[in-house]
């Protein structure tokens, strides 16, 4: 490794080791959903639709004392090469579960007994790090649905390739690299809500990779915040009519 690291380290797409891929998030992309978001994170293209809180079907899955967050991660057959079966794989099911666990700490589920919040994630195109991109889009979609949140959940992965720690792995780096550490983080509450790793790292590298991912999450948080504040900013022409509307409301 030492020989390699002396040469200048270059990533396959020319990014710096701690540089994120281009990130674009839009809201309101699924008119029928209560909230939705579209994310492009590198070549990942993902749509998230949120429904609820609404009545739980089937009823037996509802809880008398709190709402249930139900996340469904699904890859379209054409999102990867070669085509994959549209039936949910074990991987899809595990990711659905960890997505739910990543988002739930940000919600006030105790406010919605017997109800469900459905988060539907469709991977249109996969390019490494789909679970992180899904978390980013899903938390924006939850906010877009007007569901109160304790914090945003921001997510990205760090990893290792050719002995170098890198941020936000693309598909190639994910497959060829030595390790992949996806992390989701609530930046204001300083809580890690998703943490997985596959690969081989020393405990020191593990910690360093987590720290690197957390820095990435903080940058992504700024983008999420911007997207939402842009959409929900009060247009200037409404400023003057503000008092009047409030009175009418009462």
């Amino acid at each position: 490794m030492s020989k390699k690291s002396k040469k200048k380290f270059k990533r396959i797409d020319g990014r710096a080791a701690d540089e994120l891929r281009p990130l674009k998030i839009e809201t309101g992309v699924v008119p029928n959903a209560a909230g939705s978001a579209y994310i492009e994170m590198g070549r990942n293209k993902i749509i998230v639709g949120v429904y609820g809180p609404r009545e739980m079907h089937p009823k037996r899955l509802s809880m008398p004392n709190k709402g249930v967050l139900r996340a469904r991660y699904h890859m379209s057959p054409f999102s990867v090469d070669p085509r994959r079966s549209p039936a949910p794989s074990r991987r899809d099911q595990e990711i659905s579960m960890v997505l739910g666990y990543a988002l739930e700490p940000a919600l006030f589920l105790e406010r919605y007994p017997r109800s469900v919040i459905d988060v539907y994630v469709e991977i249109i195109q996969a390019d490494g790090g789909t679970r992180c991109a899904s978390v980013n889009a899903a938390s924006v979609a939850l906010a877009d649905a007007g569901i109160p949140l304790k914090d945003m959940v921001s997510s990205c992965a760090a990893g290792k390739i050719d002995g170098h720690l890198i941020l936000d792995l693309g598909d190639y780096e994910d497959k060829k690299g030595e390790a992949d550490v996806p992390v989701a983080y609530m930046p204001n509450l300083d809580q890690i809500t998703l943490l997985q790793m596959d690969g081989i790292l020393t405990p020191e590298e593990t910690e360093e990779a987590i720290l690197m991912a957390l820095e990435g999450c903080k940058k992504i948080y700024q983008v999420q915040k911007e997207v939402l504040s842009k959409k929900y900013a009060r247009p200037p022409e409404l400023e003057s009519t503000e008092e009047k509307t409030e009175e009418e409301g009462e």
Partner: protein
Amino acid sequence: MSSGIVSRLKRKKVLELLEAGTRMDGRGLLEYREMTIRSSFLEKAEGSAEVRLGKTHVIVGLKAGVGTPFEDTPDEGVLMVNAEFTPMANPTWEPGPPSEAAIELARVVDRGLRSAEILNMESLGLVSGEKAYILFIDLYILNYDGNLIDACGAGAIAALKGARIPSYKISEDNEVSKTGKTKKLKLRRHPIPVTITKIGDYLILDATAEEEEVADGRFTVTFDEKGNVTTLQKSGAVGFTLDEIKKCINIASEKAAEIRKIALGK
């Protein structure tokens, strides 16, 4: 990680005990139950291990056969891990397709083995694109009392370590046939998962079913014998601070070495 009404009362009790530095069964917070592993005890399976961890009882069976390799890895053998929650193992488990928990268990054990590159998969290929060894590891839960990931992870290593798979010879027209001899699997590493459960602000090792029911979440760290981390898995709808994560990694590092000795029969 249930949030039923009864379990909220139980949670209160568990938390009171944790505050006093003890647990429902009198153990310390980081005290493990006794783990025993009996390996290669089945005749028809190529590898096997029976794990007992407190009242948790798991049988790991390894079957080896010949099948078609995956399209994208034509020269490699195939390793599959599957978990079966038998309905007898817990009063609330029912027959049916694998639950989310069973899928996660199989996936975490599978990823633990795979990411540690435990086997040279190319050495398990037979005829490129046509035939390869297929290894099935089935995790059979017979009695559930918590901490299935650790029990199954150790059991999988024990089963792989003791496995004797049939040798095959390949004829000129690429037909494979058994030679009648068996061979051992060469394990490059012995990754061992250790799970830390979070209840309130407390971190405990080797949670029982009762504790898992009232827990907020858990964090599994898999270590190889060289001190490398090979898999992480955070589970449960709860956040961990970076300090808690570091603490878990430290706890797991020590414990993994002890469990490895049991799994390898040392």
